[in-house]
C-alpha cells in the first residue's frame, strides 16, 4: 500500500496543468437545449 500511494502522488505531481484561459469541452451528451426543458 505504501508503494501505491507513492505512485499516485507522483502521477498527480506530474499532471500537466491546463493553460491559462482553458475552457474544458462540453460533455458529449446530452446535447444543447434548443428551446426549453420541461
Amino acid at each position, binding site marked *: 500500500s505504501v508503494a501505491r500511494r507513492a505512485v499516485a502522488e507522483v502521477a498527480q505531481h506530474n499532471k500537466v496543468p491546463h493553460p491559462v484561459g482553458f475552457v474544458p469541452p462540453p460533455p458529449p451528451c*446530452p*446535447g*444543447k437545449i434548443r*428551446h*426549453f426543458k*420541461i
Partner: protein
Amino acid sequence: VPAAPLAPLGCDDPESEAAAEFAVNYINGHNHHGFKFDLNRIENIRMIHQGPNNYVIFLELDLLETSCHVLSPTPLKNCTVRSITQHAVEGDCDVKLQKLDGAFSVLASKCNSHADSSEDVLQICPGCALLAAFNNTEVLTAVATALNDHNSKTPDAYLRLLEIGRANIQYAPAHVVYVEFAVAATNCSAAEAKDNVEACQLLPDDQSNFGFCTATMVIHPSQDLSVDCRLYGHQVPTPDPGVTYSHPGYDTS
C-alpha cells in the same frame, strides 16, 4: 463477430444533428394525428459500425410540440414550438437508424408524449389555461359550436371535423375554452348540408382539402365566440426536406 463500437459521437456533432433531423422528419411524416414536433435536445447517441460505409445509429431525442398540425404543409422550420404558458407537450423518442453509403433510413422508432405538469405551468403563469381532455363536455361543445358557426357564415365548402388537436380551459379571471381542430372539406356547400348533411362526402385525400380551425369560446362572465378556419389549400405547399425514405420503418410506434 460482434460489431465494434466507434469512437463516441457527441450529441451536438454535425453528424448527430443530421441524424436527428432525419429522424424528426420521419417521425412527423409517419404521425397522422396531432401536431408536428420539433427537436429540443439530443439526449444520447450511439453509433455501431456494421461494415464499410454502413453504420447503425441509436438516438434518444427530446422533442417539443409545435403549432403546426401534421396535415399542415408548413415546413417544420416555420412552425412555432408551443410555449410553457400554452401548456407544452414533450415527446421522448428512441430511434434506430441506418446510415449506408451516406444515406439515412429509419429502422425503428418509438415515441411517447406527455404534457408538462399543471403545477409547473401554474407556477410560471398562475392564470394560464391548462390542457383539457378531448372528451371534456365544454371542449366538445366549443368545437361543435365553432364549426357550426363557421359553416353557417361561409358560402364555401361545408367543413367536417377530422380531429380535435388541442384544448385548453381557463377558469379565472374569465371562464374560457380554447380549442384547435383539424377539418376536411366536403362536396357540399353549407346550404346543401343544411338540407341533407348525411349526403355530404369528404373530398378525396388531397392536402388542399384539409384545414385547421382555432376557436375561443368565452363562457363567463359573458358569452362570446370567435372562430378562425383556414384550408391548407390557401398555403403554398412546401414539403419538409428529407421525408423520402429508402426503407419504410420496420417497427414504428
